[in-house]
């Protein structure tokens, strides 16, 4: 087996252990040399060529890279929705074998159910899991209110804008208090202004109840704004290029987005992409 390329750390926060005696929090998600190969009649495509990563409990980690770098594939593998060709993923010490259910998922498409109201769309998470409706109904209402959809509980998806639908989708992903939130380019289909607003909203909701988050994005500024760490990935084949630690205090606001520290991070990552030929200017 050829040695996997070591990801270089821009700033080290301390050793992340991966041995058997490690505390659960540090190795909440343990991804070991995950490979994914898609085979078709035309040949095989290596979407992921051996990715290793550890995610701490309560951490906000972004998977950042251009299209084709396998970041969505990696997310689906972590969620147990796509099987890996090789390698292993452990969540809280247990290797995953099938679809993870202690998760909330948000896709680029809100995937709401047209025949249900916003509130019922959020509550389907509860119904599906056969949890007590009475216990979670107030929480669902609270979540919707916290994203500004308080008066829209009875509205159906066709009566909502794209941004509003995505907010409902996020509430649905959090209502059952999962230990992991997986987001696949959740704001990709929204206009730039709505996207900026959603970044603020997501940070606010997350700070109220910091669940472990894995966010797939291709927006550098979004990743810097939201994350504790950014896993910068390179395409063809999908590999981890760098892991960047974002050392900015929270809550991060508009002013911080203008600060030299912030711009520094964005610049460094952009530069990295340019070096790798992802951006050619």
């Amino acid at each position, binding site marked *: 087996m050829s040695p996997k390329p070591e990801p270089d750390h821009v700033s080290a926060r301390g050793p992340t252990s991966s041995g058997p005696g490690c505390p659960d929090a540090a190795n909440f998600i343990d991804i070991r040399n995950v490979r994914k190969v898609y085979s078709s009649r035309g040949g095989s495509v290596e979407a992921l060529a051996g990715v290793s990563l550890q995610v701490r409990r309560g951490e906000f980690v972004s998977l950042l890279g251009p299209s084709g770098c396998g970041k969505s594939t990696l997310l*689906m593998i972590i*969620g147990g*929705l796509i099987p890996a060709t090789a390698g292993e993923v452990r969540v809280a010490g247990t290797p995953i074998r099938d*679809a*993870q*259910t202690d*998760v*909330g*998922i948000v*896709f680029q*498409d809100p*995937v709401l*159910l*047209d*025949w249900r109201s916003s509130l019922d769309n959020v509550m*389907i*998470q509860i*119904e*599906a*899991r056969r949890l007590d409706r009475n216990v979670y109904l107030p929480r669902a209402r609270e979540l919707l209110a916290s994203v500004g959809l308080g008066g829209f509980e009875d509205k*159906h998806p*066709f*009566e909502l804008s794209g941004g509003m639908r995505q907010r409902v989708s996020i509430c649905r992903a959090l209502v059952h208090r999962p230990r992991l939130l997986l987001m696949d380019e959740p704001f990709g289909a929204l206009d730039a202004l709505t996207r900026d607003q959603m970044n603020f909203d997501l940070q606010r909701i997350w700070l109220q109840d910091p669940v472990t988050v894995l966010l797939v994005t291709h927006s550098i500024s979004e990743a810097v704004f939201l994350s504790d760490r950014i896993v910068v990935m390179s395409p063809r084949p999908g590999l981890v290029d760098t892991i960047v630690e974002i050392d900015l205090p929270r809550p991060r606001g508009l002013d911080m987005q203008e600060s030299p520290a912030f711009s520094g991070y964005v610049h460094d990552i952009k530069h990295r992409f340019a070096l790798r030929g992802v951006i050619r200017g």
Partner: protein
Amino acid sequence: MDKSPRDPSSIIYPAFTIALLLMCWEVLTRTGAAPPYALPSPRDVLMEVIDRWPALLTNALSTTVVIVVGFALSVVLGIALAVLISSSRAFEKSIYPLLVGSQAIPKLALAPLFVVWFGFGLLPKSLMTFFIAVFPVVISTVQGIASVEPELEFLARSMGLGQYRTFRMIRLYRALPSIFAGLKVAITLAVVGAVVSEFVGSDEGLGTLLLRAIGAVNTPLLFAALLVLTVLAVLLFALIELVERVAIPWHVSQRSR
């Protein structure tokens, strides 16, 4: 649910068109361009309808029963078949080609066979109707069930939903618009199917009446029967649309156009 007020133009337009057609028809017969045995005047047809009203009504009811029974069978069995096809690859591969092949058989050729097997009466007639109407129900339902995008499937799995509950809570609703499209086609086919079955194996119903009128070259009666048949078909179709409105008010096709 937002619904636009019933647009008067949806009644005025067809009413106007029909009136126009009726005028042309009247002119054609008045000027003698068409002989009375080939094309009776609208007035003659109307007189026939009024004269023969009891007979027309009784026969229409008889045909309606055949249509409804045949249609109901096609809905229940058609959807059941579609669910089976959707849930088992093996079943799909075994049944689908047979189903499609069976549609190629002209139903009029099957009708006498049904009479031989089942005799006269409601059974062979509703079976015929069922056979004609079931195909669009199956196809549209299969299509509807299959039209679930991968993200929705991922979502269902991540929520811990198994096959059955995913179907009951998500796929079935998703399929409804498609199913209704199939039902609308099926009801019109059911009307045709019922009439065809009456041509061969019946002593009552609008189909039988049509045959008698043709045999006696009683063109006004023929037209009268056809008129009643048309009205029946339109009413049944409208009924399905009404049910659709109530069942899937949330679908894009039901909102103000």
